[in-house]
Protein backbone atom coordinates (compact mmCIF):
# COMPACT_ATOMS: atom_id res chain seq x y z
CA UNK A 1 0.00 0.00 0.00
CA UNK A 2 1.29 3.37 -0.99
CA UNK A 3 0.23 5.13 2.20
CA UNK A 4 2.06 2.58 4.23
CA UNK A 5 5.02 3.04 2.05
CA UNK A 6 5.13 6.78 2.72
CA UNK A 7 4.79 6.20 6.43
CA UNK A 8 7.67 3.80 6.28
CA UNK A 9 9.89 6.22 4.51
CA UNK A 10 8.94 8.90 6.99
CA UNK A 11 10.01 6.61 9.81
CA UNK A 12 13.32 5.98 8.14
CA UNK A 13 13.90 9.66 7.66
CA UNK A 14 13.20 10.25 11.34
CA UNK A 15 15.82 7.65 12.18
CA UNK A 16 18.40 9.42 10.02
CA UNK A 17 17.91 12.86 11.58
CA UNK A 18 18.34 12.38 15.29
CA UNK A 19 16.10 14.53 17.46
CA UNK A 20 18.83 15.25 20.00
CA UNK A 21 22.43 14.67 20.91
CA UNK A 22 23.72 13.77 24.32
CA UNK A 23 27.03 15.22 25.31
CA UNK A 24 28.95 15.24 28.55
CA UNK A 25 29.54 18.69 29.99
CA UNK A 26 31.82 19.89 32.69
CA UNK A 27 31.38 23.28 34.19
CA UNK A 28 32.32 25.08 37.33
CA UNK A 29 29.72 25.77 39.94
CA UNK A 30 30.07 27.95 42.98
CA UNK A 31 29.23 26.35 46.26
CA UNK A 32 27.77 28.44 49.07
CA UNK A 33 28.29 26.91 52.43
CA UNK A 34 26.39 28.54 55.33
CA UNK A 35 28.41 28.07 58.50
CA UNK A 36 25.59 28.91 60.89
CA UNK A 37 21.89 28.05 61.02
CA UNK A 38 21.05 31.67 61.85
CA UNK A 39 19.80 33.05 58.53
CA UNK A 40 19.45 36.62 59.72
CA UNK A 41 20.29 40.01 58.27
CA UNK A 42 24.01 39.67 59.07
CA UNK A 43 24.27 36.61 56.86
CA UNK A 44 22.84 38.40 53.84
CA UNK A 45 24.85 41.54 54.56
CA UNK A 46 28.02 39.50 54.52
CA UNK A 47 26.91 37.82 51.30
CA UNK A 48 26.17 41.17 49.66
CA UNK A 49 29.57 42.37 50.75
CA UNK A 50 31.21 39.42 49.06
CA UNK A 51 29.17 39.89 45.88
CA UNK A 52 30.09 43.55 45.65
CA UNK A 53 33.77 42.70 45.67
CA UNK A 54 33.53 40.46 42.59
CA UNK A 55 30.23 41.19 40.86
CA UNK A 56 31.16 39.67 37.50
CA UNK A 57 32.28 36.40 38.97
CA UNK A 58 28.99 35.63 40.66
CA UNK A 59 26.55 37.04 38.11
CA UNK A 60 24.13 34.24 37.12
CA UNK A 61 26.65 31.74 38.43
CA UNK A 62 25.31 28.22 38.88
CA UNK A 63 25.33 27.73 42.61
CA UNK A 64 25.14 24.78 44.94
CA UNK A 65 24.04 25.08 48.53
CA UNK A 66 26.36 23.10 50.73
CA UNK A 67 24.38 22.16 53.82
CA UNK A 68 27.06 20.21 55.67
CA UNK A 69 27.40 22.70 58.55
CA UNK A 70 23.64 23.36 58.88
CA UNK A 71 21.75 20.08 59.38
CA UNK A 72 19.04 21.99 61.30
CA UNK A 73 18.15 24.15 58.29
CA UNK A 74 15.56 21.73 56.95
CA UNK A 75 12.12 23.31 56.53
CA UNK A 76 10.88 23.81 52.97
CA UNK A 77 9.92 27.39 53.87
CA UNK A 78 13.34 28.17 55.28
CA UNK A 79 15.04 26.86 52.17
CA UNK A 80 12.61 28.60 49.85
CA UNK A 81 13.40 31.92 51.53
CA UNK A 82 17.09 31.27 51.12
CA UNK A 83 16.77 30.35 47.43
CA UNK A 84 14.62 33.38 46.68
CA UNK A 85 17.06 35.69 48.39
CA UNK A 86 19.88 34.23 46.33
CA UNK A 87 17.94 34.57 43.08
CA UNK A 88 17.27 38.22 43.90
CA UNK A 89 21.04 38.65 43.99
CA UNK A 90 21.44 37.27 40.48
CA UNK A 91 22.66 33.91 41.65
CA UNK A 92 21.31 30.66 40.18
CA UNK A 93 20.96 27.98 42.84
CA UNK A 94 20.24 24.62 41.25
CA UNK A 95 21.23 21.99 43.77
CA UNK A 96 22.15 21.02 47.29
CA UNK A 97 25.16 19.15 48.57
CA UNK A 98 25.85 17.23 51.80
CA UNK A 99 22.13 17.40 52.56
CA UNK A 100 20.28 15.20 55.08
CA UNK A 101 17.25 13.15 53.94
CA UNK A 102 14.81 15.81 55.10
CA UNK A 103 16.81 18.54 53.40
CA UNK A 104 16.86 16.54 50.14
CA UNK A 105 13.04 16.28 50.20
CA UNK A 106 12.63 19.97 50.94
CA UNK A 107 15.09 20.82 48.18
CA UNK A 108 13.32 18.66 45.60
CA UNK A 109 10.03 20.42 46.44
CA UNK A 110 11.82 23.61 45.43
CA UNK A 111 13.16 22.03 42.21
CA UNK A 112 16.72 21.71 43.50
CA UNK A 113 18.61 18.53 42.75
CA UNK A 114 20.74 16.63 45.23
CA UNK A 115 24.42 16.45 44.17
CA UNK A 116 26.42 13.64 45.65
CA UNK A 117 29.73 13.95 43.84
CA UNK A 118 32.29 16.66 43.34
CA UNK A 119 35.30 17.87 45.19
CA UNK A 120 35.54 20.85 47.46
CA UNK A 121 37.38 23.61 45.73
CA UNK A 122 39.99 24.69 48.29
CA UNK A 123 42.69 22.02 48.02
CA UNK A 124 44.02 20.50 51.18
CA UNK A 125 46.84 22.55 52.62
CA UNK A 126 49.31 19.70 52.31
CA UNK A 127 48.75 19.29 48.60
CA UNK A 128 49.05 22.95 47.97
CA UNK A 129 52.42 23.06 49.74
CA UNK A 130 53.66 20.19 47.62
CA UNK A 131 52.83 22.03 44.45
CA UNK A 132 54.74 25.09 45.60
CA UNK A 133 57.73 22.95 46.53
CA UNK A 134 57.79 21.32 43.11
CA UNK A 135 57.95 24.73 41.49
CA UNK A 136 60.85 25.73 43.72
CA UNK A 137 62.78 22.57 42.86
CA UNK A 138 62.84 23.40 39.18
CA UNK A 139 66.55 23.30 38.32
CA UNK A 140 68.37 26.41 37.31
CA UNK A 141 68.70 26.72 33.58
CA UNK A 142 72.47 26.41 33.46
CA UNK A 143 74.19 23.45 35.06
CA UNK A 144 77.76 23.91 36.27
CA UNK A 145 80.04 20.98 37.12
CA UNK A 146 83.30 21.71 38.90
CA UNK A 147 84.58 18.13 39.27
CA UNK A 148 86.22 16.05 36.55
CA UNK A 149 83.63 14.12 34.54
CA UNK A 150 84.92 10.56 34.58
CA UNK A 151 84.61 7.73 32.13
CA UNK A 152 81.16 6.18 32.34
CA UNK A 153 79.51 9.25 33.84
CA UNK A 154 76.73 11.11 32.08
CA UNK A 155 75.91 14.71 32.87
CA UNK A 156 72.62 16.04 31.53
CA UNK A 157 71.47 19.64 31.47
CA UNK A 158 67.89 19.09 30.44
CA UNK A 159 66.85 22.72 30.24
CA UNK A 160 69.76 24.90 29.33
CA UNK A 161 73.51 25.13 29.07
CA UNK A 162 76.08 22.83 30.60
CA UNK A 163 79.37 24.18 31.89
CA UNK A 164 82.14 21.83 32.97
CA UNK A 165 85.21 23.21 34.69
CA UNK A 166 87.69 20.35 34.55
CA UNK A 167 88.53 17.47 32.27
CA UNK A 168 85.91 15.30 30.58
CA UNK A 169 87.32 11.80 30.20
CA UNK A 170 86.98 9.49 27.28
CA UNK A 171 83.88 7.39 27.84
CA UNK A 172 82.04 10.24 29.58
CA UNK A 173 78.94 11.89 28.11
CA UNK A 174 77.73 15.46 28.25
CA UNK A 175 74.20 16.19 27.11
CA UNK A 176 72.57 19.62 27.11
CA UNK A 177 69.46 21.19 25.71
CA UNK A 178 71.54 24.30 25.08
CA UNK A 179 75.26 24.94 24.69
CA UNK A 180 78.08 22.94 26.22
CA UNK A 181 81.18 24.69 27.57
CA UNK A 182 84.17 22.70 28.75
CA UNK A 183 87.03 24.52 30.44
CA UNK A 184 89.51 21.70 30.16
CA UNK A 185 90.25 18.87 27.78
CA UNK A 186 87.13 17.34 26.22
CA UNK A 187 87.89 13.69 25.59
CA UNK A 188 84.41 12.21 25.88
CA UNK A 189 81.22 12.86 23.97
CA UNK A 190 79.40 16.17 23.91
CA UNK A 191 75.84 16.47 22.61
CA UNK A 192 74.46 19.99 22.53
CA UNK A 193 70.99 21.02 21.41
CA UNK A 194 69.66 17.67 22.56
CA UNK A 195 66.05 18.76 22.04
CA UNK A 196 66.75 19.91 18.53
CA UNK A 197 68.11 23.42 19.08
CA UNK A 198 70.22 23.97 15.96
CA UNK A 199 71.73 27.18 17.30
CA UNK A 200 73.40 25.34 20.19
CA UNK A 201 77.21 25.18 20.22
CA UNK A 202 79.97 23.23 21.88
CA UNK A 203 82.99 25.06 23.24
CA UNK A 204 86.08 23.49 24.74
CA UNK A 205 89.58 24.61 25.61
CA UNK A 206 91.12 21.42 24.26
CA UNK A 207 89.46 19.23 21.68
CA UNK A 208 90.12 15.50 21.97
CA UNK A 209 86.47 14.50 21.78
CA UNK A 210 85.23 11.08 20.77
CA UNK A 211 82.08 12.61 19.39
CA UNK A 212 80.55 16.04 18.95
CA UNK A 213 76.87 16.40 18.19
CA UNK A 214 74.52 19.34 17.79
CA UNK A 215 70.80 18.77 17.37
CA UNK A 216 71.44 15.20 16.32
CA UNK A 217 74.08 15.94 13.67
CA UNK A 218 77.35 14.47 14.80
CA UNK A 219 80.99 13.88 14.01
CA UNK A 220 83.25 11.30 15.56
CA UNK A 221 86.92 11.83 16.32
CA UNK A 222 87.72 10.08 13.06
CA UNK A 223 85.93 12.70 10.99
CA UNK A 224 87.01 15.67 13.08
CA UNK A 225 89.82 17.29 11.17
CA UNK A 226 93.07 16.58 13.03
CA UNK A 227 94.24 20.18 12.78
CA UNK A 228 91.72 21.15 15.46
CA UNK A 229 92.98 18.53 17.86
CA UNK A 230 94.18 19.80 21.22
CA UNK A 231 92.99 23.29 20.38
CA UNK A 232 90.58 25.78 21.80
CA UNK A 233 87.57 25.31 19.53
CA UNK A 234 83.88 25.76 19.03
CA UNK A 235 81.51 23.56 17.07
CA UNK A 236 78.28 24.79 15.50
CA UNK A 237 75.82 23.99 12.74
CA UNK A 238 75.99 25.82 9.45
CA UNK A 239 73.88 24.75 6.47
CA UNK A 240 73.10 21.48 8.19
CA UNK A 241 76.78 20.70 8.62
CA UNK A 242 78.68 20.41 11.84
CA UNK A 243 81.54 22.89 11.61
CA UNK A 244 84.53 23.20 13.93
CA UNK A 245 86.50 26.40 14.26
CA UNK A 246 89.43 27.39 16.40
CA UNK A 247 88.88 30.22 18.83
CA UNK A 248 91.41 33.04 18.98
Amino acid sequence: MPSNDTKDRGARAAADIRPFQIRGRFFTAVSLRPESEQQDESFFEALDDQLRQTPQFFANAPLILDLEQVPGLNGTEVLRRMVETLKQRNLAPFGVQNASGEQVRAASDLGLINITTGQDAPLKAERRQKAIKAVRQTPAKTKTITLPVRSGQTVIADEGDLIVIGPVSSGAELIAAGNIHVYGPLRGRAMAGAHGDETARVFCTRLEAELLAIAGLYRTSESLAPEYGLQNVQAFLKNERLCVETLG
Partner: protein
Amino acid sequence: MSKIIVVTSGKGGVGKTTTSAAISAGLAKRGHKTVVIDFDVGLRNLDMIMGCERRVVFDFINVIQGDAKLKQALIRDKRLDNLAVLPTSQTRDKDALTQEGVEAVLNELKEEFDYIICDSPAGIERGALMAMYYADEAIVVTNPEVSSVRDSDRVLGLLQSKTHRAEEEGAEPIKAQVLITRHDQARIDKGEMMTVEDVLEILAVPLLGIIPESPAVLRASNMGVPVVLDDPSAAASAYEDAVARLVGEQVEMKIGGERRPGLISRLFGRTA
Protein backbone atom coordinates in the same frame (compact mmCIF):
# COMPACT_ATOMS: atom_id res chain seq x y z
CA MET B 1 91.21 7.06 64.40
CA SER B 2 91.52 4.14 62.06
CA LYS B 3 91.45 4.52 58.32
CA ILE B 4 89.82 2.32 55.72
CA ILE B 5 91.77 2.31 52.45
CA VAL B 6 90.49 0.54 49.36
CA VAL B 7 92.92 -0.71 46.73
CA THR B 8 91.02 -0.73 43.47
CA SER B 9 91.51 -0.35 39.71
CA GLY B 10 88.60 -1.47 37.57
CA LYS B 11 90.80 -3.48 35.26
CA GLY B 12 92.13 -6.87 36.32
CA GLY B 13 95.73 -7.94 36.48
CA VAL B 14 97.20 -4.51 37.17
CA GLY B 15 98.51 -5.39 40.63
CA LYS B 16 95.77 -4.70 43.17
CA THR B 17 96.46 -7.73 45.32
CA THR B 18 100.24 -7.32 45.09
CA THR B 19 99.79 -3.69 46.10
CA SER B 20 97.40 -4.53 48.95
CA ALA B 21 99.92 -7.02 50.30
CA ALA B 22 102.87 -4.65 49.90
CA ILE B 23 101.10 -1.59 51.33
CA SER B 24 99.68 -3.44 54.32
CA ALA B 25 103.03 -5.10 55.07
CA GLY B 26 104.73 -1.73 54.64
CA LEU B 27 102.34 -0.07 57.09
CA ALA B 28 102.79 -2.89 59.61
CA LYS B 29 106.55 -2.65 59.23
CA ARG B 30 106.29 0.99 60.27
CA GLY B 31 104.51 -0.06 63.43
CA HIS B 32 100.89 0.58 62.43
CA LYS B 33 98.37 -2.09 63.34
CA THR B 34 97.12 -3.16 59.95
CA VAL B 35 94.63 -5.66 58.56
CA VAL B 36 94.13 -6.51 54.92
CA ILE B 37 90.79 -7.88 53.71
CA ASP B 38 90.21 -9.85 50.52
CA PHE B 39 86.97 -8.74 48.84
CA ASP B 40 87.49 -10.95 45.79
CA VAL B 41 84.96 -13.57 46.87
CA GLY B 42 85.25 -16.72 44.76
CA LEU B 43 88.68 -15.82 43.37
CA ARG B 44 90.66 -15.58 46.55
CA ASN B 45 94.32 -14.79 46.04
CA LEU B 46 95.41 -12.48 48.79
CA ASP B 47 96.13 -15.30 51.22
CA MET B 48 98.53 -16.82 48.69
CA ILE B 49 100.35 -13.55 48.10
CA MET B 50 100.56 -13.13 51.87
CA GLY B 51 101.76 -16.70 52.25
CA CYS B 52 99.06 -17.83 54.64
CA GLU B 53 96.84 -19.94 52.40
CA ARG B 54 97.46 -23.08 54.44
CA ARG B 55 96.23 -21.40 57.61
CA VAL B 56 92.78 -20.41 56.35
CA VAL B 57 89.99 -22.04 58.38
CA PHE B 58 87.22 -19.47 58.54
CA ASP B 59 86.84 -16.54 56.19
CA PHE B 60 85.27 -13.11 55.69
CA ILE B 61 82.01 -14.60 54.42
CA ASN B 62 81.73 -16.89 57.44
CA VAL B 63 82.04 -13.83 59.65
CA ILE B 64 79.47 -11.86 57.65
CA GLN B 65 77.01 -14.71 57.89
CA GLY B 66 77.65 -15.21 61.58
CA ASP B 67 79.13 -18.69 61.21
CA ALA B 68 82.42 -17.65 62.79
CA LYS B 69 83.77 -14.93 65.03
CA LEU B 70 86.07 -12.32 63.55
CA LYS B 71 88.88 -13.48 65.84
CA GLN B 72 88.61 -16.99 64.41
CA ALA B 73 88.88 -15.79 60.83
CA LEU B 74 91.71 -13.27 61.26
CA ILE B 75 95.11 -14.74 60.41
CA ARG B 76 98.02 -13.09 62.24
CA ASP B 77 101.08 -12.74 60.08
CA LYS B 78 104.08 -14.75 61.30
CA ARG B 79 106.62 -12.16 60.15
CA LEU B 80 104.99 -9.01 61.51
CA ASP B 81 103.05 -8.82 64.78
CA ASN B 82 101.03 -5.83 63.63
CA LEU B 83 99.73 -7.46 60.48
CA ALA B 84 96.60 -9.57 60.03
CA VAL B 85 94.86 -11.01 57.00
CA LEU B 86 91.13 -11.57 56.61
CA PRO B 87 90.87 -14.07 53.76
CA THR B 88 87.78 -14.58 51.68
CA SER B 89 85.82 -17.59 50.51
CA GLN B 90 86.76 -19.46 47.37
CA THR B 91 83.44 -21.30 47.13
CA ARG B 92 80.96 -18.44 47.47
CA ASP B 93 80.29 -15.51 45.17
CA LYS B 94 80.04 -11.74 45.52
CA ASP B 95 76.37 -11.87 46.46
CA ALA B 96 77.46 -13.16 49.85
CA LEU B 97 78.75 -9.65 50.59
CA THR B 98 75.99 -7.66 52.26
CA GLN B 99 76.36 -4.00 53.02
CA GLU B 100 75.31 -4.47 56.67
CA GLY B 101 77.66 -7.43 57.05
CA VAL B 102 80.61 -5.55 55.59
CA GLU B 103 79.88 -2.54 57.77
CA ALA B 104 79.68 -4.68 60.92
CA VAL B 105 83.00 -6.39 60.19
CA LEU B 106 84.71 -3.08 59.37
CA ASN B 107 83.39 -1.52 62.57
CA GLU B 108 84.73 -4.41 64.62
CA LEU B 109 88.12 -4.19 62.88
CA LYS B 110 88.27 -0.45 63.55
CA GLU B 111 88.43 -1.15 67.26
CA GLU B 112 91.73 -2.94 66.92
CA PHE B 113 93.49 -1.72 63.78
CA ASP B 114 94.88 1.62 62.61
CA TYR B 115 94.68 0.77 58.94
CA ILE B 116 92.15 -1.46 57.20
CA ILE B 117 93.20 -2.24 53.63
CA CYS B 118 90.41 -3.51 51.37
CA ASP B 119 91.68 -5.50 48.40
CA SER B 120 89.02 -4.94 45.76
CA PRO B 121 88.17 -7.40 43.00
CA ALA B 122 88.44 -6.25 39.40
CA GLY B 123 85.35 -4.85 37.71
CA ILE B 124 82.76 -2.39 38.93
CA GLU B 125 80.17 -4.84 40.20
CA ARG B 126 79.04 -5.77 43.66
CA GLY B 127 82.40 -6.95 45.00
CA ALA B 128 84.22 -3.82 43.91
CA LEU B 129 81.41 -1.54 45.09
CA MET B 130 81.32 -3.23 48.51
CA ALA B 131 85.10 -2.93 48.85
CA MET B 132 85.00 0.82 48.17
CA TYR B 133 81.72 1.69 49.90
CA TYR B 134 83.01 2.45 53.40
CA ALA B 135 86.48 3.63 52.38
CA ASP B 136 88.06 6.82 53.69
CA GLU B 137 90.84 6.76 51.13
CA ALA B 138 91.45 4.98 47.85
CA ILE B 139 94.55 3.77 46.07
CA VAL B 140 93.75 3.45 42.39
CA VAL B 141 96.23 1.06 40.81
CA THR B 142 96.94 1.81 37.16
CA ASN B 143 99.30 0.48 34.52
CA PRO B 144 100.58 3.08 32.08
CA GLU B 145 98.40 1.93 29.21
CA VAL B 146 95.13 3.28 27.84
CA SER B 147 92.63 0.63 28.87
CA SER B 148 93.89 0.52 32.43
CA VAL B 149 93.80 4.30 32.67
CA ARG B 150 90.28 4.51 31.29
CA ASP B 151 89.06 1.86 33.75
CA SER B 152 90.74 3.71 36.59
CA ASP B 153 88.97 6.85 35.52
CA ARG B 154 85.67 4.98 35.65
CA VAL B 155 86.48 3.77 39.15
CA LEU B 156 87.35 7.31 40.26
CA GLY B 157 83.88 8.30 39.08
CA LEU B 158 82.33 5.56 41.21
CA LEU B 159 84.40 6.59 44.21
CA GLN B 160 82.97 10.08 43.97
CA SER B 161 79.38 8.89 43.54
CA LYS B 162 78.69 5.37 44.81
CA THR B 163 80.26 5.37 48.25
CA HIS B 164 79.18 6.11 51.78
CA ARG B 165 81.16 9.34 51.83
CA ALA B 166 79.60 10.39 48.54
CA GLU B 167 76.09 9.67 49.75
CA GLU B 168 76.39 11.18 53.20
CA GLU B 169 75.54 14.84 53.36
CA GLY B 170 78.51 17.02 54.28
CA ALA B 171 81.09 14.22 54.41
CA GLU B 172 84.54 14.81 52.92
CA PRO B 173 84.87 12.95 49.63
CA ILE B 174 87.13 9.91 49.50
CA LYS B 175 90.76 10.92 49.12
CA ALA B 176 91.87 9.08 46.00
CA GLN B 177 95.47 8.68 44.87
CA VAL B 178 96.85 6.87 41.87
CA LEU B 179 99.61 4.29 42.09
CA ILE B 180 101.25 3.51 38.78
CA THR B 181 102.49 -0.07 38.65
CA ARG B 182 104.47 -2.02 36.04
CA HIS B 183 106.17 1.18 35.01
CA ASP B 184 108.71 0.39 32.31
CA GLN B 185 110.77 3.37 31.23
CA ALA B 186 112.29 1.52 28.28
CA ARG B 187 108.86 0.77 26.82
CA ILE B 188 107.67 4.30 27.52
CA ASP B 189 110.70 5.66 25.64
CA LYS B 190 109.80 3.43 22.73
CA GLY B 191 106.29 4.86 22.80
CA GLU B 192 104.71 1.56 23.78
CA MET B 193 103.39 2.85 27.08
CA MET B 194 101.97 6.08 28.40
CA THR B 195 104.12 8.49 30.34
CA VAL B 196 103.41 9.28 33.96
CA GLU B 197 102.40 12.81 33.00
CA ASP B 198 99.87 11.50 30.48
CA VAL B 199 98.32 9.22 33.07
CA LEU B 200 98.07 11.96 35.66
CA GLU B 201 96.68 14.41 33.16
CA ILE B 202 93.80 12.08 32.40
CA LEU B 203 93.09 10.94 35.93
CA ALA B 204 93.60 14.34 37.57
CA VAL B 205 94.31 12.94 41.05
CA PRO B 206 97.52 13.01 43.14
CA LEU B 207 100.23 10.44 42.50
CA LEU B 208 100.99 8.07 45.38
CA GLY B 209 103.90 6.33 43.76
CA ILE B 210 105.45 4.70 40.73
CA ILE B 211 106.27 1.00 41.00
CA PRO B 212 108.69 -0.23 38.35
CA GLU B 213 108.15 -3.42 36.42
CA SER B 214 110.37 -5.86 38.27
CA PRO B 215 110.97 -9.59 38.37
CA ALA B 216 111.17 -9.19 42.16
CA VAL B 217 107.37 -8.66 42.28
CA LEU B 218 106.55 -11.93 40.55
CA ARG B 219 109.11 -13.83 42.55
CA ALA B 220 107.82 -12.48 45.85
CA SER B 221 104.24 -13.33 44.85
CA ASN B 222 105.18 -16.87 43.97
CA MET B 223 106.88 -17.30 47.31
CA GLY B 224 104.01 -15.80 49.26
CA VAL B 225 106.00 -12.89 50.59
CA PRO B 226 104.81 -9.28 50.31
CA VAL B 227 107.42 -7.59 48.15
CA VAL B 228 108.47 -5.15 50.88
CA LEU B 229 109.40 -8.07 53.16
CA ASP B 230 111.46 -9.78 50.47
CA ASP B 231 115.05 -8.98 49.50
CA PRO B 232 115.65 -5.33 48.63
CA SER B 233 114.54 -4.40 45.11
CA ALA B 234 113.56 -1.30 43.18
CA ALA B 235 109.89 -2.33 43.47
CA ALA B 236 110.18 -2.88 47.23
CA SER B 237 111.68 0.55 47.84
CA ALA B 238 109.10 2.16 45.57
CA TYR B 239 106.35 0.55 47.65
CA GLU B 240 108.02 1.72 50.85
CA ASP B 241 108.08 5.27 49.50
CA ALA B 242 104.41 4.96 48.61
CA VAL B 243 103.61 3.82 52.15
CA ALA B 244 105.53 6.79 53.55
CA ARG B 245 103.47 9.14 51.37
CA LEU B 246 100.30 7.35 52.41
CA VAL B 247 100.96 8.18 56.07
CA GLY B 248 101.66 11.77 55.17
CA GLU B 249 105.42 12.00 54.74
CA GLN B 250 106.96 14.03 51.94
CA VAL B 251 109.10 11.72 49.84
CA GLU B 252 110.61 12.69 46.53
CA MET B 253 109.04 10.86 43.59
CA LYS B 254 111.60 8.52 42.04
CA ILE B 255 111.28 6.59 38.85
CA GLY B 256 112.47 3.18 39.93
CA GLY B 257 114.66 0.89 37.91
CA GLU B 258 118.38 0.79 37.68
CA ARG B 259 119.57 3.67 35.58
CA ARG B 260 116.72 6.14 35.51
CA PRO B 261 116.97 9.81 36.41
CA GLY B 262 114.36 11.22 38.79
CA LEU B 263 111.02 12.38 37.53
CA ILE B 264 111.82 15.99 38.22
CA SER B 265 115.00 16.03 36.16
CA ARG B 266 113.24 14.13 33.42
CA LEU B 267 110.42 16.65 33.44
CA PHE B 268 112.92 19.47 33.14
CA GLY B 269 114.71 17.58 30.41
CA ARG B 270 111.47 17.39 28.49
CA THR B 271 110.20 20.88 28.84
CA ALA B 272 113.56 22.60 28.31
